[in-house]
């Protein structure tokens, strides 16, 4: 195998640390009833766990994983969103480098880093639910989807995770390649909610 390259050049490039670029950089939209923002970079883990794994990962997190449909639990900037009987999305919305994957593998859990797979959008305002309902078929009334609940659902043809953080505040998580489409639908919905 050919191996070329001077030592100096090698040293220089090995020191290089690649810079991070963001799929949602600079995205913002606001009208009188809805404000849309790109969420700050977050740490994310897709957690799958058998029953006895729930305790294992809860100890790693420092708080109990929620175990009922739609439920969420939070401590500081760390949030655990119940997505299915053995599935959670774990987020640290402030510390993008938070160690959400336990260092030691455990047979009862699968913790996979998906920090870069997803991006987040924040919707706030009185028209946020109506704006989402332009493309999201879920019942977003406060009775059916109160604050502090989350759900995997769809926005148009894209899969999203929808997390209602407060009465008039939502976080939308989608896969990064869907950003132009999801952003387009969110802006379209926000405009319609404002009419």
């Amino acid at each position, binding site marked *: *195998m*050919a*191996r*070329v*390259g001077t030592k100096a*050049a*090698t040293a220089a*490039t*090995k*020191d*290089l*640390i*690649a*810079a*991070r*670029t*963001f*799929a949602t950089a600079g995205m913002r939209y606001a009208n009188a009833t809805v404000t849309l923002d790109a969420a700050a*970079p977050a740490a994310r883990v*897709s957690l*799958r766990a*058998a029953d006895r794994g729930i305790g294992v990962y809860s100890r790693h997190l420092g708080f109990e994983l929620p175990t009922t449909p739609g439920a969420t639990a939070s401590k500081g900037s760390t949030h655990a969103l119940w997505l299915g009987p*053995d599935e959670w999305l774990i987020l640290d919305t402030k510390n993008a480098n938070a160690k959400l994957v336990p260092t030691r*593998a455990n*047979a*009862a859990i*699968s913790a*996979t*880093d*998906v*920090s*870069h*797979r*997803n991006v987040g959008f924040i919707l706030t305002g009185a028209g946020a639910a*109506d704006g989402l*309902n*332009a*493309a*999201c*078929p*879920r*019942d977003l*009334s406060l009775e*059916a989807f109160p604050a502090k609940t989350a759900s995997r659902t769809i926005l*148009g*043809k*894209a899969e999203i995770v929808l997390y209602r953080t407060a009465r008039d505040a939502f976080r939308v998580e989608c*896969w*990064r*390649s*869907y950003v*132009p*489409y*999801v952003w*387009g*639908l969110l802006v*379209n919905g926000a*405009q*319609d909610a404002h*009419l």
Partner: protein
Amino acid sequence: MKPSSTQPFRIAKRGALSAAREVQFTFDGRSYAGLEGETLASALLANGVHLMGRSFKYHRPRGVMAAGVEEPNALVGITRDNARHTPNVRASVQELYDGLTATSQNRFPTLNFDLGAFNSLMSTFFPAGFYYKTFKWPRSAWDKVYEPFIRRAAGLGTAPSEADPDRYANRFAHCDVLVIGGGASGMMAAKTAVDRGQSVILCDENPTLGGWLLSDTDVTIDGQPGVQWAATMATGLAAHDNVRLLTRTTGFGYFQQNMVALAERLTDHLATPGPALPRERLWQVRAKRVVLAQGAIERHMVFPDNDRPGIVLAGAAQTWLNRYGVSVGKRVGVFTACDTAYQAAFDLAEEGVDVPLIADTRPQVAEDILAQAEEFGIEIITDAQMTGTTGRLRMNSMIVNGDREEEVDALITSAGWTPSLHLYSQSRGKPQWDAKTQRFVPGQSPQDCVTVGACNGATDLQTALHEAALAVGGKPADFAIADDVSIAGGMIGETRMPQKRGKAFVDFQNDVTAKDIKLAVREGMHSIEHVKRYTTNGMATDQGKLSNMHGLAIAAEMLDKRIPEVGLTTFRAPYTPTTFGTFVAQATGPLFDPERRTPIDGWAEENGAVFEPVSLWRRAWYFPQAGEDMREAVDRECQTVRKTAGIFDASTLGKIEVVGPDAAAFMDIIYTNGWSKLKPGRAKYGIMLREDGFIYDDGVVGKLSDTRFHVTTTTGGAPRVLNHMEDYLQTEFPDMRVWLTSTSEQWATIAVQGPKACEIIEPLVTGQKLDNESFPHMSVAECKVCGVDARLFRISFTGELGFEINVPADYGRTVWEAVWTRAKPLGACVYGTEAMHVLRAEKGYIIVGQDTDGTVTPHDAGLSWAIAKAKPDFVGKRGLERPDLKAPGRRQLVGLKTTDPAIVLEEGAQIVDDPEQPTPMKMLGFVTSSYWSGSLGHSIAMALIEGGRDRIGEKLYVPVPDAEPIEVEITGTVFWDESGERIHG
């Protein structure tokens, strides 16, 4: 043209528009004045214009008949500009705005003089079912004469010539109670529900809530005029938080589990709609309970010459008079079988309109009605029949009982009221026949759906209000209701006609007469479904809102059967014509489908890539340099990879993380080959089958540890492969401790391929030696590239020495740039998907979905080596044992070389062994992949051919339209570096 300043049929003091603004509009180029808030039909009537259209088949002059969506005749085109032209708008519901431009349809050259009316003289030759009979022979005339003729005659109005520039919106909504219809009963149901704490959506197709109360000036509720009571109710409802009132909104489709579609019209009534406003909004409502309060539709009378302009429904005349202050004529006759027409007649007489004569088919009329008629000096003939009318573009007279001719310029008719069963029927409810009242009424809906008021068969207001309250679990209250006219009674079918002359129309829009329906029955159509299709009764854009019951009654009488035995046709969505824009809503342009882009897409765009769509992704196809066409660019890219190196964005590859103590066992069962014995740090090409033994997907899988695999799939296959695996895991192997996570988008993937690949990346990699001993072909390592956590594969899809660098997606672009900074000075290139395809085809590597089509086994594809024979089981193992999959002569994947090296075959082209054989020829197989190979200097192709591997060396032919067949030689699939040495550097 100067607008006429007078509106001779306007009665300013009547109706709700006395304070309305006067606006100008045009109809067929002529200017008129009307009032804001009325309909186009109402405004034309105020100007004395009844003639608004021509019928479809006979081109007979037609006037507006109805004041609502049931209108069959007055269909017009409304034009804002070339792109905003809406055909077939019912003038009876189009709201007037300043500057509205309307044109009549289905006439040439003008509405007053239409050459198509010739058809009317020929009507003897156009009976029911004429197109099934007339156009049979000679056969040769079909293409040149009959079909062009029918196509020209078919269709109403003209489509706009430009793309629709308007925006359309969509909204999903949920509620406890959805009320469709905002008349008295609908509003009562909504109020009762909201008082009980339920969330309510109330929609009505009109701009104002109130329904019939807006047209009835006599009725009072608790001492209040009906129209005021309605306004008070509407204001009260609007004040509630959990009520959404949607006016100008039609409930048009009723689907499973109380999913109801509503179309809200936001701009069609505005002179200058704001640019931000969507034209229409589709509401997709999921309701716990649906209350249908759609009301009833008045029927016309079926008598000879019943279609002259000036003949209108009595209720419509009442609406025009009492809502908009317009009289339908100066001297108005009446022909009725129902009390409600008297109310209309008296309202007109009250305003000084001459009403000389009421002809009533019934033998007796109630005393109080007779008394009122006498007060107004109106003559009543009971047991009466109308035997004809006169007039051409407008009626001149009515003829009663054959001898009594009365001059009138308008005639109001009523045959009674048909409960509106459309949405009830769409909910899969079966209409019940009520023999006593001769009506179909709703029964029990299979969904949580309640019908109330006139659409439930209620004939008086008190009953309607009671039903409404009960529908949502409330207590019915009694109101003091006065001067409410019952809508009971009437008749269905044709009136008795002593004379056989004149057409008695049942369906106006499709020109179906009573005679046509009788003919259909005589010719053997005994089910109403057959009668409908043979005569086209009820098949026009109004879906027979006026004609269905009459048609049914006439057919039943002919068949001498009871009406329910003849049956009722099923109502289908949409209730009224709905624009494509509403269905599409916001899903146009970039919001039609997601266009997925990789983290490196921006770099490719900045560097001149040409893109191609691959499933939902847009991928860099090739990177032309100045002056290069596609073939030159692809040739250069391929040859640079072979000679030096190339870098390629492979980020779209599907990636699945398979984790857990049973990960290897699961991989063993899902893939054909073995994984348990694979050492961590090694990678392997895997094939996955369906249960039937056919190839489902393939890809390279890296084993990161005994409990963690990094699986790659084809770009297009990623979602279905994950579903396939998850499906087996959950349904067949639920005891396995293994979990699947999609990581396709977690990683940006950069392929570096070619003799200098190692030299390019080596300085960027830390934590892993790259020499052949430490990191041989088919290895995987977790290390750092450009200082970030990476998964590095030693892997090749080109046959050259190669690597694939996976870094977290947000680092993809900068790592790519760092690799390119290294690669460019060494003479390497960036290559796209086309070069990738050529490079892999030169090596005979298959692409699932291109070289396989769901009927190809690993044996067929020449991949028997990838099946572990010792494994006890895997998905597809038993499928592969099926006799037909083991039979000789199956299509096998082989290579093809054209005798003329310059010819590149068409992908999909069929292959035969003797091109001289008669057609249809025996096809031996087809071309799956075909490219020009610049590296080899000749074209290459792959093909699936019967018994292909035994035919290697044979000459076959590819027939080409209008040219000589192309001679090809069957070869093996590997064209480049058959020994496979280059992969090891």
